[in-house]
């Protein structure tokens, strides 16, 4: 049994469990699944700077920090105790493409050549980590949610704005991965 758990899980298992997060949070206390909101709560708690967007009672949303902390701990448990050291299976075409940019490491879930402290001081590493993170934070708040809030919670409750947002996420992702990213990785 433990051997099965230690293998990467198939999409239908993961998808079902992620889907069940929606009713779990609703039943536990009427909470709407959505993670990017806690970035806003972090601003409200630490740097409100008299901006009206950050002036609200963030303490009422403190559950979201507990949820995020749980995610962090869960990933730690999964990595430390429920994983095998086998390299990550990556599509052969993608591996070949990445090799052109000097990215060959797939021993862990993120390639070391891009996601390490050393890479932070390279141009492409800085763009991937710092600019990428900024786009995630700015974009999710502007859109009013992220993959959890819009794609999963929003579509589960049949919200048309969430479908529009999800399509926009995908368009942005396709554009980056296929058109812009090759230039960034060449830097």
């Amino acid at each position, binding site marked *: 049994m433990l051997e099965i758990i230690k293998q990467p899980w198939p999409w239908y298992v*993961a998808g079902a469990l992620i889907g069940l997060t929606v009713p779990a949070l609703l039943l536990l206390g009427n909470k709407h699944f959505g993670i990017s909101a806690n970035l806003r709560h972090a601003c409200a708690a630490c740097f409100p700077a008299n901006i009206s967007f950050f002036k609200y009672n963030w303490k009422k949303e403190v559950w979201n920090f507990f949820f995020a902390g749980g995610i962090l701990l869960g990933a730690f448990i999964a990595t430390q105790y429920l994983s095998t050291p086998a390299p990550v299976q990556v599509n052969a075409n993608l591996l070949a493409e990445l090799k052109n940019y000097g990215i060959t490491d797939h021993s862990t879930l993120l390639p070391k050549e891009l996601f390490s402290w050393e890479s932070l001081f390279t141009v492409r590493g800085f763009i991937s980590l710092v600019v990428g993170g900024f786009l995630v934070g*700015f974009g999710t708040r502007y859109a009013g949610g992220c993959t959890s809030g819009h794609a999963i919670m929003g579509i589960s409750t049949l919200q048309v704005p969430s479908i529009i947002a999800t399509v926009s996420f995908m368009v942005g992702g396709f554009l*980056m991965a296929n058109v812009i990213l090759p230039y960034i990785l060449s830097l």
Partner: protein
Amino acid sequence: MNPQDRVSETEVLMPTDFEVRSLDTNCINESQLQHKWYHNLKYAVAGIVFGIVLTKAEIISWFRIQEMFRLQSFHMYGVIGTAVVVGMLSVWLIKRFKVKTIYGEEIVFHPKKFNKGQIIGGLIFGLGWALTGACPGPLFAQIGAGFLVILVVLASAVAGTWVYGFFRDKLPH
């Protein structure tokens, strides 16, 4: 329901900025209950399960995200598709049978309003998603999985959220 769970009168009368909150965050629950802090631990448990799933299904992997946007793997589409179907069914059942929370409160849903932000912001987030290989949930999971450099990405994401808040009134919505 315990009487001490009832919220104090001042709390009820405190005005809440529904407009700002309904527009911008999904957490618009206005529970009438007040609990001790440790009641939040149940959300941490939900988070732990969610974090294990994100990691075990490799959703936090930059490679999986690249494969998704290059149409080289069905994995992410399968995950998101299944999650949406299961979520939809759950919400339907909750509405159909008027299921209550574990505290006996009615479960409420809030309709979202369309604004241009969902398109413009959505595109911007999509660019960041493919670049970092992570959306906000996986960011926390990547840190827990030992990629401490992702703390920089998270800090940058908080900065991005702050900058949005700062320029919010000048941006098209």
